[in-house]
C-alpha cells in the first residue's frame, strides 16, 4: 500500500504541475478540502494518530504544510501572470489576513514552543524496551530524513541514502547552469517550460511526497513485496549467498545503473516519443549539459520506477525477463 500511495502522490503532482485548474481559487479550495479530508482520514488511524502526537515529528508537519502552501501560492501567481490581463483574478488579500512579519511570528513561536513543549530526549541507548512497531519507522530517524528512510524501504539503502541525496545535491548545484533562459525572464514557467517543471517535480515529488507518505501513510512494513535486485541476482539467479562486501553485493544494481546512465542519454533524443523534448534539450543545452541533465533525470526516475517495481512485485517480473534473456 505504501509504494502504491507514493505512486499516486507522484502521479497527481506530475499531472497537475502544468495544468491550470489546481492554481485557481476553486482548485485551491478543492485542494484544501482534499488535504483536510486526507488529514481527517489519517487521524482516524490509530498508528498515524500516535505518530503525529510525537513532538519530534511536529516540525515535519509544519514543513509539509508551509512548503505545500508556498508551492501552491507561487504556482498560482505564475499562472496568473501568464494569462491575459482581462482574465486575471483579483489580487489576493492574504496579506491582510496574516499581517505580522514572519520574523516576529517565527521568533516568538520558538520561544512559545520552547516554553510549552519540552524537547524530547528519546529512549536511552541501552534500553531493552523495543520501540512500538507502528512507530519504530517514524522514530528511527529525525523528521527531515523520514522521506529518505521511507524510500530506503522500497529502493534499498544504496539508492535511497547515497544516489538520491547525491542527485539532489547535484541538481541544486546545477540548477543555474541548466537554465538557459534569458535573465530578464523570471518565474517558474516563464522562459523555462522544460527545465522548471522537471526540477519542481523532482523537488516536490522526491523531497516532499515520501515525507507525506511517511507521516500520514499506513503502517509501512507490509508494503515492500519482492526482493531487491541484489537479493534476486545472488539468491535466486545464482543460487548462492550474498557477498559480505557491499560493493560486490550491489554490483548488479551498479552495473544496471551505469548502463542506464550511458544508454538513456543516447536513446532519448532519438526515440519517437521523446525526440521532441529531448532533441530540443540537446540543441539548447549542448551535449555536455544535456548529459548532465539526463543523469539527474535518470537518478530522479529511480524513485517512481523502483516504487512501481516494488508495487507490482519485483521478483516475478525480473524472473520473467531473466527467462527471456537466459
Amino acid at each position, binding site marked *: 500500500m505504501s509504494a502504491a500511495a507514493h505512486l499516486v502522490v507522484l502521479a497527481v503532482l506530475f499531472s497537475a504541475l502544468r495544468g491550470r485548474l489546481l492554481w485557481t481559487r476553486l482548485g485551491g479550495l478543492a485542494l484544501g478540502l482534499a488535504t483536510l479530508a486526507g488529514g481527517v482520514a489519517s487521524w482516524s488511524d490509530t498508528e498515524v494518530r500516535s505518530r503525529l502526537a510525537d513532538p519530534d515529528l511536529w*516540525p515535519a508537519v*509544519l*514543513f509539509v504544510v*508551509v*512548503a505545500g*502552501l*508556498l508551492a501552491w*501560492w*507561487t504556482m498560482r*501567481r505564475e499562472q*496568473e*501572470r501568464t494569462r491575459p490581463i482581462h482574465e486575471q483574478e483579483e*489580487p*489576493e488579500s*492574504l*496579506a*491582510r489576513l*496574516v*499581517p*505580522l*512579519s*514572519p*520574523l516576529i*511570528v*517565527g*521568533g516568538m513561536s*520558538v*520561544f512559545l*514552543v*520552547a*516554553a510549552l*513543549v*519540552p*524537547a524530547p*530526549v*528519546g*529512549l*536511552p*541507548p541501552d*534500553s531493552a524496551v523495543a*520501540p512500538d512497531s507502528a512507530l519504530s519507522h517514524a*522514530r*528511527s*530517524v*529525525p523528521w*527531515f530524513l523520514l522521506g529518505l528512510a521511507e524510500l530506503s524501504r522500497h529502493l534499498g539503502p544504496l539508492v535511497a541514502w547515497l544516489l538520491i541525496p547525491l542527485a539532489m*545535491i547535484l541538481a541544486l*548545484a546545477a*540548477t*543555474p*547552469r541548466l*537554465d538557459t*533562459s534569458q535573465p530578464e*525572464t*523570471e518565474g*517558474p514557467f*516563464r522562459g523555462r517550460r522544460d527545465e522548471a517543471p522537471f*526540477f*519542481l517535480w523532482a*523537488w516536490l515529488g522526491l523531497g516532499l511526497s515520501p515525507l507525506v507518505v511517511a507521516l500520514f501513510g499506513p503502517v509501512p512494513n507490509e508494503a515492500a513485496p519482492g526482493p531487491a535486485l541484489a537479493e534476486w541476482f545472488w539468491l535466486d539467479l545464482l543460487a548462492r549467498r550474498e557477498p559480505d562486501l557491499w560493493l560486490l553485493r550491489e554490483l548488479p544494481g551498479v552495473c544496471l545503473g551505469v548502463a542506464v546512465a550511458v544508454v538513456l542519454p543516447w536513446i532519448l533524443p532519438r526515440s519517437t516519443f521523446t525526440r521532441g523534448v529531448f532533441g530540443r534539450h540537446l540543441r539548447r543545452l549542448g551535449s555536455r549539459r544535456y548529459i548532465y541533465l539526463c543523469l539527474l533525470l535518470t537518478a530522479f526516475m529511480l524513485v517512481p520506477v523502483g516504487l512501481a517495481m516494488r508495487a507490482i512485485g519485483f521478483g516475478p517480473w525480473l524472473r520473467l525477463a531473466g527467462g527471456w534473456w537466459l
Partner: protein
Amino acid sequence: MPQPSSIPDASGQPATPLFRRGAWGRLALALLPLVAVSGLLLASLYRPSADDAWWSVAAIRGGDWSVVRDLHRWGGELLLIAVWLHLFRVFMVGAYRRRSGWAVSVAGTLFVILSMVTGWLLRFDHGSALVVDSLALGLPFLYALHVLVLPLALVSVFAVWRRHRASGGVTGEKGES
C-alpha cells in the same frame, strides 16, 4: 509610504508576509545567533561519550537549563525549515541565476542539514545510537563537527554572503538574498 504587505515583488504583484522576498532568509539569519548562543551554553553541560551522552541530555532536560535546550532544539528545527523554504522560494522565483547567491544558499542549507544530523546523533538515544554505532563514528568526532567545524562553515558562508551582498552580487531578485 506603502504598507510592507503591498510592496510588489519582482513579479509586479503584492507580496504576502509569508512569501515576501528574503523573509525566510532573514528568519534563518535571526535564528542563527539564538541557536549558536543556546548551543554554547549547553556545550558545558553535555558529555560526548557513549556512556554519558544520553544521561547528560536527560539531566539537562530535567534541570534548570531545560528551556535553553528547548530553545536550541526548536530553534534549530525552525532554522532548517526556514533555510529550506528560502531555497525553495529562490528557486521558484528564478533568482538562482545569480550563481554566487544560489551557491551560498545551497551551501548554507547543506551545512544546516549536517548540523541537524550531527545534533540528532549527539542525542545518542535508542535510534541515533544505532546509527552512530553502524557508522563507526565516535561521539567526540561528531561533537567536534557539530560545535566547531559546521558552525565555522556556516560563519564562512555568512561572511561570503555579506561580502557578495555588499558588492551587490548576491541579490538576484532585486533584493533576493
